[in-house]
């Protein structure tokens, strides 16, 4: 890599304060043309704010931004975008009901004379742009009919459609499957070949080390480090981010749930507390059987759209299963009723924190006691005193960082919001906890804490079902992994045989029988999963009539 002498973006002395609280303190950042520059830090380190200052969402209180040799300060994101600074946000900022083509050109539609939208040109250009990022889809489809991964690619197509010189990607892979990540990386490399500079924000160490050349680390709103990524080990990088020595699990970059094979085998022999039989929901899952014993962490593995989330959501009554039964301690749970599932001792930590979890206007206290409210009240009267006692306990145990229990949850960082939701279920004293992507989008520190907590809860006898897209988390966290494909169970790994390689092998196996030496409970059904992500019809031994793209949603 030859360092370019003249950076395309140079930010210096950036300071930004929100309501008296500094978010950025004298931060500098420079970006060279054609480089992929990692911007890392824990949640709240100031990454998002720095990006927002650069792209005109916020204006810096002090400091200087030089872009392509000129001092700039954008008043709106649109101005920055037109100047060639494009951003792809973590949550896809597109309009679900509009078509793919309309989304790509939203606000910059190709015009004909009289200012009319040139739909033909728009469709054509959209197709070209999407083809450039490896997506072949009908651009007249409404965006929401696409899977999350594909939507992300649309967002990227949109970002580069503006002749961008700089593309900022904020957690671009958080909803992508491994093969989509590969596509993304290929696209990123193509972009850099065109001289485009990429700011890459991510928590995922693997990705950073794979794609990024340099790294800038922020911590508590301050600049901590900038340099070539190759000069750092993971441990170096993480300790710079955290500003402290990381405990066990350093080599992996994260502390995962502690598991060991003996513990796992012991759990399997215990009487299951949760038994699921033949759970079926049209277009989602079909005939899922699952047993979980107290103290056991069962992972659900599979690609996007395999039915992992759907499985836990149907168990918890978030959606009503078409067929099948869920029993807890031998008694049936009424399907389709979250209240019934909760009464039976089931707690579901949903995948989408914002949409299904927090109530942003309410306080930390009220969010925590939401489910437990009836238990903490007498004759319908709320006892804040009793609530406080519970809330204090869990805020301490989960180390929830809030200015007080009365702070609004919407003001907390993602990691702390997630802890609040965990507390909501823990204060119900559940027997079964269903965790759907419990560490998605939260910072490294909080992630390790959540993982350690889950392991601890399992040791205390909680039955846990864990859904995670992060192979590492699943492999290190679960005592047993059930592999799903297109809504059906296709295999199981237990205890010591759980490795990333085995799991990948199981998920990508081409219909052949797996090594079945581990005495699992169920017969395995294998399907052709090799190329399932992109193909409309996976073909082969499948036979589930669910188009993947729809199942993604």
């Amino acid at each position, binding site marked *: 890599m030859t360092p370019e002498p003249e950076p395309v973006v140079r930010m210096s002395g950036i300071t930004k304060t*929100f*309501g008296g*609280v*500094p*978010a950025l303190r004298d931060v500098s950042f420079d970006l060279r043309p054609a480089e992929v520059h990692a911007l890392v830090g*824990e*949640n*709240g*380190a*100031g990454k*998002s*704010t720095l990006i927002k200052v650069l792209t005109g*969402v*916020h204006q810096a209180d002090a400091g200087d931004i030089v872009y392509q040799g000129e001092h700039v300060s954008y008043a709106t994101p649109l101005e920055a975008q037109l100047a060639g600074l494009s951003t792809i946000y973590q949550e896809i900022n597109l309009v679900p009901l509009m078509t793919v083509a309309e989304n790509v050109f939203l606000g910059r539609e190709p015009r004909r004379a009289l200012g009319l939208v040139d739909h033909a040109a728009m469709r054509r250009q959209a197709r070209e742009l999407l083809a450039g990022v490896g997506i072949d889809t009908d651009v007249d489809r409404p965006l929401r009919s696409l899977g999350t991964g594909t939507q992300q690619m649309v967002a990227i197509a949109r970002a580069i459609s503006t002749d961008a010189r700089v593309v900022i990607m904020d957690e671009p892979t958080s909803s992508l499957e491994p093969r989509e990540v590969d596509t993304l990386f290929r696209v990123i490399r193509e972009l850099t070949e065109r001289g485009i500079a990429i700011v890459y924000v991510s928590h995922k160490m693997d990705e950073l080390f794979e794609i990024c050349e340099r790294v800038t680390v922020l911590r*508590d*709103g301050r600049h901590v480090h900038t340099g070539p990524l190759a000069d750092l080990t993971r441990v170096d990088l993480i300790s710079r981010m955290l500003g402290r020595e990381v405990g066990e699990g350093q080599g992996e970059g994260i502390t995962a749930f502690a598991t060991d094979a003996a513990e796992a085998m012991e759990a399997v022999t215990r009487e299951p507390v949760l038994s699921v039989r033949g759970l079926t929901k049209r277009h989602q899952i079909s005939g899922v059987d699952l047993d979980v014993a107290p103290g056991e962490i069962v992972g659900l593995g599979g690609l996007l759209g395999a039915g992992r989330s759907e499985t836990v959501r149907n168990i*918890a009554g*978030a959606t009503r299963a078409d067929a099948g039964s869920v029993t807890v301690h031998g008694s049936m749970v009424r399907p389709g009723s*979250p*209240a019934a*599932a*909760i*009464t039976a001792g089931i707690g*579901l930590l*949903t995948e989408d924190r914002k*949409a*299904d*979890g*927090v*109530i*942003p*206007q*309410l306080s930390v206290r*009220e969010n925590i006691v*939401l*489910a437990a*409210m*009836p238990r903490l*009240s007498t004759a*319908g*009267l*709320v006892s804040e005193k009793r609530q406080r006692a519970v809330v*204090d306990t869990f*805020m*301490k145990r989960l*180390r*929830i*960082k*809030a*200015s*007080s*229990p009365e*702070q609004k949850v*919407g*003001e*907390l*960082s*993602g990691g*702390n*919001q997630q802890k609040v939701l965990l507390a909501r279920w823990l204060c119900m004293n559940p027997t079964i906890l269903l965790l759907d992507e419990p560490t998605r989008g939260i910072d490294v520190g909080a992630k390790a804490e959540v993982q350690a907590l889950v392991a601890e809860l399992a040791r205390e006898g909680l039955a846990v079902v864990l859904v995670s897209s992060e192979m590492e988390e699943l492999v290190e966290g679960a005592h047993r992994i059930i592999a799903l494909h297109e809504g059906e169970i296709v295999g199981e790994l237990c205890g010591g045989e759980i490795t990333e390689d085995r799991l990948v092998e199981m998920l990508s196996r081409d219909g052949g029988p797996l090594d079945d030496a581990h005495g699992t409970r169920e017969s395995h059904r294998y399907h052709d999963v090799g190329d399932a992500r992109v193909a409309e019809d996976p073909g082969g031994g499948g036979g589930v009539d669910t188009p993947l793209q729809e199942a993604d949603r």
Partner: protein
Amino acid sequence: MSTTTAPSVGEQEATRDDTRRSRVDLGLVRDYGVYVALLVLILFNVIFTPYFLTSANLRVQLVQVAPVVIVALGMAMVIGTEGIDLSVGSVMALAGALVPLYLGYGVPVAILVALVGGLVSGLFAGTLVAYVGVQPIVATLGLLVGVRGIAQLLLGGQFRQIDSAGFNNLGTGAIGPVPVVVLVAVVVAALVGFLVRRTTFGRRLVAIGGNPVAARLAGLPVRRTLLTVYVASGLLAAAAGILLTAYQKAGTPSTQGLLMELTAITAVVVGGTPLSGGKIRVLGTIAGALLMQLVGATLIKHDLPQSINQMTQAVIIVAAVYVQRNRGGARR
């Protein structure tokens, strides 16, 4: 306390930054603006309006605002669930029609029947919203039209005078210096305040308004709660209708409670309850109702035409919505 630290940069960054910025600018206005405006207006009247501070004038103002307060408090609870109840004015008319029809059975029976009218209307709206899944504005718009139709039908398109002194005393009587109407409004306010702040029902309302999906997944009885809140709104509207009927000494289905839904919504919004749900301000709603009442009274006292009054109200509504605007945006 070891768990509570000063808000770090992290928390700040995680908030919607636009919200944060405007909260600095508008937060105080949003939280206390209505009280300040009310105070200023009262001061203005004390200084510039002759006979403002006479007990006769104050009594008139309070008696006039009392039904609005009662309706608006029901409305505030509905709006707290991110709903709306457009039927309240028509329900008032229905109550006004039912009372004279049943006064023959005695005052208590007439009142009870009128309340049942509000309850049934609320059950209908609540069922549509909670169980059928009709949008609140559509469901209650239907009732806005339909219920007034029923009210007019009941009295054959006429108004009916009431000469039962016992009943009319509700509207014009007083206990000590306090008019009965005002007393009822105060009791209702205390009740609703208690309900919202201290009961699980009240906390459910705001939880559902804040995030209905999360509320359902947390096992809250979302449908039952929604049904109940529309019933409560219907009951309160009927109560207001009964009081107004007694005050007017007549049931006047074609005019009674006309546009009350808009007056009530205005009071709620001006009082700082966001239309996007998740928050219910009881005192603010009362202050909002008082403010709008006083604006009207002030302009009339100073011989300004009705059109000025309407425009002033419009300005206040727009201002209230302006300071609230980020609350809706904060959810996505």
